[in-house]
């Protein structure tokens, strides 16, 4: 018994303390969301009354177009997730498998570019899209398609880099066998690479999805109109530093917005943890 104490007691103590730390904000936001008074103040850790009034307020209050925000976020993040991987996979395949002039410097450039924090060029992107707006108002500053294009470009570096790493790990013998059988590069891509890579493509695109969903500042600069905002920008503006007001509906909204991401993350846990050691840091 004493040996058990010495060996394991501290482990449980540490684990319990950290569990408390980890769960505290999550538990708090859950009980806030079902608290009928919608107050920020926590009077007791056991909810006295349970109500879904915050959720109904969130869905019905015309000043908070929450469902539109949520739809915007899902559509933007979904489109970026799919398109950036479709485009990125082809480039990654070329960088990994095909021979061409300037490949080495191309890879070096890619390495540098994927390290570049997109935020640093924020003012430049802003000014460029402002200029684009003057001749193409549909894809310039302040529009969702414009934001989408910027996200696509921003996701490209990391996606190509991650996917290139994966293609590198597919045995080259497969390609060579295909080439001996007379397959062209395009056929190798579609018939060998894409089927093999489908799970990885899915993982990388889900990671893009999470990353885009979590992006805040570009979305805030780009989407001024209330109904075009993403859920992050919308909720931030809604609570706007005034935490005591609107806390209840905010809590409800943040829970709903978190659920899809948590589900994606937990179901991809294994892959993400593998990816972690490759040096990618989730935003």
């Amino acid at each position, binding site marked *: 018994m004493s040996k058990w104490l010495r*060996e394991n007691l*501290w482990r*449980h103590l*540490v*684990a319990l303390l*950290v*569990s408390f730390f980890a*769960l*505290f*904000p999550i538990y*708090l936001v859950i009980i806030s969301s079902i608290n009928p008074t919608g107050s*920020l*103040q*926590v009077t007791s850790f056991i909810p006295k009354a349970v109500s879904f009034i915050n959720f109904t307020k969130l869905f019905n209050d015309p000043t908070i177009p929450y469902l539109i925000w949520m739809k915007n976020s899902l559509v933007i993040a979904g489109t970026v997730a799919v398109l950036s991987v479709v*485009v990125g996979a*082809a*480039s990654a395949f070329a*960088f990994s498998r*095909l021979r*061409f002039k300037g490949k080495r410097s191309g*890879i070096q*450039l*890619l*390495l540098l570019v994927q*390290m*570049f*924090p997109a*935020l*640093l*060029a*924020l*003012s*430049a992107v802003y*000014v*460029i899209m402002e200029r*684009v707006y003057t*001749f193409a108002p549909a894809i310039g500053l302040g529009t969702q398609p414009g934001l989408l294009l910027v996200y*696509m*470009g*921003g996701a490209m570096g990391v996606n190509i880099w991650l996917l290139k790493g994966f293609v590198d790990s597919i045995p080259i013998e497969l390609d060579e066998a295909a080439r001996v059988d007379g397959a062209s*590069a*395009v056929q190798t891509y579609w018939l060998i690479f894409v089927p093999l890579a489908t799970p990885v493509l899915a993982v990388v695109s889900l990671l893009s999805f999470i990353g885009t969903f*979590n992006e805040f500042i570009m979305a805030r600069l780009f989407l001024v109109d209330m109904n075009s905002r993403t859920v992050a920008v919308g*909720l931030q503006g809604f*609570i706007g530093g005034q*935490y005591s007001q609107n*806390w209840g509906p*905010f*809590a409800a909204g*943040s829970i709903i917005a*978190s659920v899809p*991401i948590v589900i994606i993350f937990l179901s991809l*846990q294994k892959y993400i*943890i593998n990816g*972690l*050691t490759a*040096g990618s*840091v*989730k*935003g």
Partner: protein
Amino acid sequence: MKLLYRGKVTKTAKYLVVAFVSAILALLIQSAFAQGEYEIAAFLAIALVSIVIVYLTDISIPFKFLLPGMLFLFAFVIGPIVYTLVMSTFQYQTGNYISKDDAISRIQLLGVEADEAGTSFDVVVGRDSAGKVAILASDILTQSYFVANKEVKRDFLSTDITLNSDGIATAAPGFTPILDSERSTLDFEVSSTRFRYSDEYFILMEGSALGVLKRQVLTYQKDKDVFVNLLDGRTFADNGKGNYADVNDPSQILQPGWRSPIWFSHYIDLFTDSEVRKPLIRVFIWTIIFASLTVLTQFSLGLLLALAMNRPIRGRRIYRSIFILPYAMPSIMSILIWGGMFDTEFGAINNLFGTDIAWFQNALFARAAVIIVNLWLGFPYFYLICSGALQAIPTELSEAAAIDGATPRQIFSKITLPLLLQIVAPLLVASFAFNFNNFNLIYLLTGGGPSSPLDGDIAGATDILISYTYKIAFGTNIQNLGLASAISVIIFIIIASISLYGVRKSKVLDTFV
């Protein structure tokens, strides 16, 4: 047969897509060119030509794969990086936002002054006999009446025109007042026209029925590129920093200025101008402290947890899922939730611990809050990393040490920790680089505050370089895109050096072929 058929379908589809994309690009090029956005038009033209060449000929198979990705990278990553470099060499801020030609015409437009007496007229807007926009002006005091357009002024006697009960002319021969329905479409033309009064003076409309006598005070002399003030003879010359400044008193400048190349002035300012340098150094030091403390706290807690869980204790799976939760939550939502919890009056933290701390109003507490929240956000990452790394360390080493009589403490500090650090070092570096630019956390939690804007200081106590740069570029008072770009370039150099060091450590470069 089937393959042949499929080949034809894909070929047709390919042509359709290429045609569609080319058509859109061509349209964009044409309108970009029409708006004078030549750089963008040129980029789009290069994109169009390369798409057509690469996909309609067999000139290079690899480029068929590479082109779309590369175009996106160049348009939205490399292009903006180059643009940032360019902007950092320009005076580019509020008041210096437009081109020089635009600035000159704006100064001319604004460089007018009312005459000393402040003469004004009651005005009816209309058209003269030639159909040009004109005004019928009345000065009730001197009983003078005239119709004027841009070039000509015609005086009338009070007997020739129709006056209303206030003595204001409402109709004159050859003059037709405009209809109310026409008013809004003519509004811009009317308000920007200078109606002739004399060689020196003209009339500008202020509101819909009042004309004010004005004269040009600042005139532009194109051959010398200077503005001259006709009243006092002062000369304003291009000061090389995007403004016309008084040649005798350089602090007197004309507004607006323009974005003008000033080469490395911003970079020099960063190091020599104490007003720029002092807050920057303060922010830089806090950025380093913030990123280091973050990595240290996240890694320590992660490692402690990994060690605690490194043995199959009861409930390990449940613990593990709980530990991952903070990492699985979208970080934006977590940060906003924490922001509410740190609220001084109603927040759960003050309530729970019975404290009354103004977390975001006190520099020290705000910094502590930032570190605590970031610990919550990031410890699971290092827990996962360290668990993995601990498994990767061969147990033979510690067993051998134990046989040689090493205590568990010695085994940990002499064997496990050094080996572990070797594995996670590149990730510590990557995490440092990431947190160096952790904009969302700072911006959403404290907004960089607390700060004392009364001192004219826009940098707050928790501002890190990237959030400070954002405030400079998109702040509420002055938006200095040029200076912000210069700081961005410096940050990039720092980040790139850190990351390249990390990459070299992790031996990614070795796989280069």
